[in-house]
């Protein structure tokens, strides 16, 4: 499996047709595009974090603290739009999929490099459209990131650019998914059979199918909202004979599978990190693949659990509740397999490992609290309360976010050819983890006690929990600053990294750090006994 080192320039220093900034924003190299996504998404994530901090500061005390109610509505809407459409949906696939997928399957690039660059440009266009909605027109969108009908076409705020921005971002996601599907089908190196694919690649494959099939649904739905708003066509507006619940169906047909777009690659990254830092073959390789595809498939069919209190029929409610419980099974299979991999492994406790095990911890809490929401009776009690916000953030931030940090600490030496300061990295993880628990855990309690979500005010009895939660947001932000400063500094001044510092077995660890422009001198060939997790 070893390939010879390339003497030529690596992808970071390579000078092609264009130089300087143009050499990056016009590059079709999958690794450069991955880094473009990393920097773009990190910028948007920081923006989203700042909005989140502002929200938590507002909730520090009952009544107005730092902003008006209308401003609060806009802040949580923009926070949601940025974090969902610009951070967690593209997050792991666009960054680490681009950076690592071709190398992990022994290819020189993705199947359609120009389309790949177009995906990033569409992402940037979508970002600017949404930002335009914030800065120009009649005020920032205030509907929540779900753009629910009929409010999304009744509100006087600046909805059209935001909707169009989300539509364009969807196109970016579809093109990335299409590219990865074809790449995985057609560009695997010799000997890289389906049952030898790294699990991160398998999860990107499942994700790509969801991106390709589910995203157009939200695209056309948002177009219908725009038509409703501009021409009053009467599809969702009950005053014109439309059905607002139809909007919710169409929106969640995409947006629930979108949760799996977020979480599947996160699970894939964890499935790479756990065996590497256990120096042990992954437990249940085929079961993990089956669970990935099962999540991708069943995840299409559970969207109605977001609508239990919306006035949906009882028959549909039973059905959606049942399937929601079924989708928990493949998720649990993954957790059991990760823990079984750790059992009797040669555990190497490093920063990516800390992130990975804390991912399992918070994902378990997020997943189990999801069952409370999937059950019809208990959902009625906690629907639209802070409980839902806590569950969602445990899954998406604790799941996808923690996996993202795990992945960046895992592949950082490969991406930049330098190693980060491990002591600061561990400190950053610890502070972030404590802040995360303090920020979101009180919200479970607050929701159970009846505090609604999306309110800028609350009753005095919820004050204690909100103080703890706001304090947690400051601790989390401190951890985030430590992590970012350490990584940014290390990317420039860190000690040179080895080609394989963690002793991984997948193909990316066989090429120099940072990888050469074309990844491999010669196409690698996998023998019968080669495999991604052959540690024995």
């Amino acid at each position, binding site marked *: 499996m070893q390939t010879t080192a390339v003497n030529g320039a690596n992808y970071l220093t390579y000078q092609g047709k264009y130089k300087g900034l143009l050499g990056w924003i016009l590059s079709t190299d999958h690794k450069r595009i991955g880094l473009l996504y990393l920097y773009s998404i990190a910028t948007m994530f920081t923006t989203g974090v700042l909005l989140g901090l502002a929200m938590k500061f507002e909730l520090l005390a009952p009544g107005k603290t730092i902003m008006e109610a209308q401003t609060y509505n806009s802040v949580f809407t923009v926070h949601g739009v940025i974090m969902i459409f610009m951070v967690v949906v593209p997050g792991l696939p666009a960054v680490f999929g681009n950076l690592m997928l071709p190398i992990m399957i022994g290819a020189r690039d993705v199947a359609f490099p120009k389309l790949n660059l177009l995906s990033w440009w569409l992402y940037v266009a979508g970002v600017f459209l949404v930002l335009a909605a914030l800065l120009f027109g009649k005020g920032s969108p205030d509907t929540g990131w779900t753009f629910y009908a009929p409010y999304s076409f009744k509100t006087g705020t600046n909805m059209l650019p935001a909707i169009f921005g989300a539509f364009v971002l969807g196109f970016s996601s579809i093109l990335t998914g299409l590219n990865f599907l074809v790449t995985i089908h057609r560009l695997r190196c010799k000997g890289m059979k389906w049952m030898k694919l790294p699990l991160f690649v398998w999860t990107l494959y499942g994700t790509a199918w969801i991106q390709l099939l589910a995203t157009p649904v939200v695209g056309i739905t948002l177009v219908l909202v725009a038509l409703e708003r501009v021409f009053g066509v009467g599809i969702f507006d009950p005053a014109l004979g439309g059905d607002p619940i139809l909007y919710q169906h169409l929106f969640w047909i995409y947006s629930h599978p979108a949760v799996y777009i977020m979480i599947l690659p996160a699970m894939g990254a964890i499935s790479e990190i756990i065996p590497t830092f256990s120096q042990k073959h992954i437990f249940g390789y085929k079961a993990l693949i089956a669970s990935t595809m099962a999540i991708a498939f069943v995840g299409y069919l559970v969207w109605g659990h977001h609508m239990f209190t919306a006035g*949906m029929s*009882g028959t549909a409610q039973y059905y959606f509740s049942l399937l929601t419980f079924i989708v928990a099974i493949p998720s649990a299979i993954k957790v059991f397999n990760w823990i079984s991999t750790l059992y009797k492994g040669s555990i190497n406790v490093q920063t990516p490992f800390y992130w990975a095990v804390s991912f399992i911890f918070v994902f378990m809490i997020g997943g189990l609290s999801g069952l409370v929401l999937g059950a019809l009776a208990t959902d009625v009690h906690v629907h639209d309360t802070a409980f839902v916000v806590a569950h969602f953030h445990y899954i998406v931030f604790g799941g996808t976010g923690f996996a993202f940090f795990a992945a960046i600490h895992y592949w950082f030496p490969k991406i930049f050819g330098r190693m980060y300061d491990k002591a600061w990295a561990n400190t950053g993880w610890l502070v972030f983890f404590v802040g995360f628990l303090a920020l979101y855990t009180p919200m479970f309690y607050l929701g159970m006690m009846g505090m609604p979500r999306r309110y800028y005010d609350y009753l005095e009895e919820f004050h204690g929990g909100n103080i703890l939660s706001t304090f947690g947001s400051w601790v989390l932000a401190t951890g985030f600053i430590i992590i970012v400063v350490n990584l940014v500094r290390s990317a420039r001044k860190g000690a040179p990294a080895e080609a394989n510092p963690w002793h991984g077995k997948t193909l990316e660890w066989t090429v120099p750090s940072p990888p050469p422009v074309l990844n491999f001198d010669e196409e690698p060939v996998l023998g019968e006994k080669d495999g991604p997790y052959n540690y024995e």
Partner: protein
Amino acid sequence: MSGEKHHIVPYRLYFVVLIALLALTFASVWITSIELRDYTVAAALLFAIVKSYLVLNYFMHLKYDKPYIKIMVGFVFAIFLVMIVITFLDYLYR
């Protein structure tokens, strides 16, 4: 990839398919002049399905592709169908 054979479709077949698509389009407009009540949408969808079948098979070459590509496309339609059925579980019993 280089060893794969590319099926060359004669222009005549493309032309026949084009004529069929145009005829079906006119037919789908014509059928609205007949009062079919609840079946109006079903009739329009029927024409759309036949047209999609022709486009997929002949213009997009699915007819000449490998079986696994056909299975993948079939899977996509199956997902779509399931989504429609589940959505109507709400509408029929609401």
